């Protein structure tokens, strides 16, 4: 495993401000989703990524335009960070034709193929084999592209993870396996789902290169992701990128979290908020903060308006798109 020091090439403050904006946009978007769900406006069920914004933003920023990703049930952040507009994501959550999956997918199936988003997956580990296959296609075609899968710590317990990692390393394809370790799989803590706490150990089984980084500060995440992605793109093989992070909310919106140790959440929210950290790092004045917050909040509000004004599919549309 390579140790990643936050390389002191250093990102410009401007770039970091862009990251902050993106992270805050995701945060406000997720909060709005919680609110609208509780208000009974959103069908289905939802998972938000509050606390994990630096992972989505840091990793997606390190990708090139032609790269592809696969996401998970906790998909809003990845999708926004990959460039899909809040309008398109929110419209999808409202089940509208203007949604990024045209109302067919929903929260756990956000797609944006034009932006290299091959889709969020509601089956844990479900997206990993396809990322391996996409990377294989890039290798076949000698295209300098990388395929990256997001997944959680819980997903490392499923067979698809194992088989995909083994295959990717064996075939030396340009894939990055980005493990967002938030220490929980729903209500099941690390200690009840995995016999290890250092997830880079998973990579040893395949002789795969791994990189571990803390996920609450966006700059090191970006650096580590860049290193992993470059490694894969160079043809040096796939990488397991372990990002240790925190889920600062319930598993799903409305989760009473009876299983969570009292106080854990409060403490984490106070000490491990990636947005607070980045704001501090940038030394933003209250005024600057208010302005930024105002902007993204408006963007999110507008996405709700956009979504509500969107077009409902016709019932019979349900019979379209079954086959190409």
């Amino acid at each position, binding site marked *: 495993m390579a140790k990643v020091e936050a390389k002191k090439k250093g990102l410009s403050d401007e770039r970091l401000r862009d990251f902050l904006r993106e992270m805050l946009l995701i945060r406000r978007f997720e909060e709005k989703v919680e609110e609208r769900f509780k208000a009974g406006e959103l*069908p*289905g*069920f939802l998972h938000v990524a509050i606390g994990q914004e630096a992972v989505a933003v840091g990793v997606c920023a390190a990708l090139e335009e032609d790269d592809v990703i696969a996401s998970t049930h906790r998909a809003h952040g990845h999708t926004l960070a990959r460039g899909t507009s809040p309008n398109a994501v929110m419209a*999808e959550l409202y*089940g*509208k034709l203007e949604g990024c*999956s045209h*109302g*067919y*997918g*929903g*929260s*756990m*199936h956000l797609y944006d193929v034009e932006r290299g988003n091959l889709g969020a*997956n*509601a*089956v*844990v*580990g*479900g997206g990993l084999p396809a990322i391996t296959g996409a990377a294989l296609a890039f290798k076949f075609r000698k295209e300098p592209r990388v395929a990256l899968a997001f997944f959680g710590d*819980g*997903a490392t*317990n*499923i*067979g698809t993870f194992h088989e995909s990692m083994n295959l990717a390393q064996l075939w030396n394809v340009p894939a990055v396996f980005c493990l967002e370790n938030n220490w929980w*799989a*729903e*209500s*099941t803590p690390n200690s*009840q*789902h*995995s016999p290890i706490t250092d997830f880079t150990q998973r990579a040893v089984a395949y002789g795969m290169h791994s990189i571990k980084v803390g996920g609450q500060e966006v700059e090191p995440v970006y650096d580590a992701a860049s290193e992993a992605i470059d490694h894969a793109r160079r043809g040096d093989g796939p990488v397991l990128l372990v990002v240790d992070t925190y889920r600062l909310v319930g598993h799903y919106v409305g989760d009473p979290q*009876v*299983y969570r140790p009292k106080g854990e959440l409060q403490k984490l929210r106070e000490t491990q908020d990636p947005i607070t950290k980045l704001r501090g790092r940038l030394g933003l004045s209250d005024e600057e903060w208010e302005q930024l917050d105002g902007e993204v909040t408006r963007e999110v509000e507008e996405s709700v308006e956009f979504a509500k004004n969107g077009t*409902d*599919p*016709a*019932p*019979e*549309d*349900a*019979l379209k798109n*079954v086959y190409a």
Partner: protein
Amino acid sequence: MPELTYREAVRDTLATAMRQDSDVFLMGEDIAEMGGSMGVTHGLVDEFGPERVRNTPISEIAIVGAGIGAAMQGMRPVVEIMYEDFLTLSTEQIVNQAAKHRYMSGGQLKVPLTIRTQGGAGWSPGAQHAQQLEAWFVHIPGLKVIFPSTPTDVRGMLWSAIYDDNPVIVFEHRLLYPVKEDVPEKLEPILFGEARVVREGEDVTVIATGPMVHRSLEAAEEAGRNGVSVEVIDPRSLQPLDEETLVTSVKKTNRCVVTHEAVTRMGFGAEVASVIQYQAFDWLDAPIERVGAKFAPLAFAPVMEQFLIPDSEDVLEGIYRTVGRKRNGD
């Protein structure tokens, strides 16, 4: 007669079995503190502890397989697969192992394993959280398959599943969990292979499973108001199947509608229709109607989802088609 929801009935059965029998234990994702994603096992970990109400990793094939191994040692594990969609990850162990160990060993082994799972649309869970796959398992000799539709049935049948010496897959349905009913004071086991005549009638037999039992009852009421007398039968256990009760009813009514929430094509209704046309051929006055989900994955947007899955209107239309008249007699 206590009133129980379907959810409570499942919980009550599990608790009763665990209280009397140390060989019974539960495994599944998030079944402990969280009580499972549907809250079914809520509170059981407090009474029985985390060894017997085991949270598992996300390892659908291994937890079914571990259940098989424990069952072969004479324990009676109850494994929960959170959604039927994820049963697709366990099929190898269910189909090649659980179903066949007894046979392949020439009768040396028993696999008293119960697999509980649930699914069902109608709440916009999307295409990977609502499939109904019971038909697959009916195709596999060595498995038993049940799909109880009421608190009383699930209580009595889950009990029988736990104490069956064969692997049993119990299909529950998301929308049935809150359904309430007075149930017998004492848990009464219900044998497999006995269909339940839910409502008697003379003109048409509706054979329905899971949530469609309730939707069919609504349709039957409405049809009754229009002068069509509908018998509703719930097979309850799909494997073994009580062909006799189904056939007897159709021989009386001469008409049949089969309905389930799963996709119509190659759904369980295909088997039922085949059995009925074969055994009641000379009694049938109209083709057997099948009412199931239309041929598409489950769309997210509620308006599309509702279009795909069958409701009481669809059953009613099936009933009217089979009695040869249109809705409202027009």
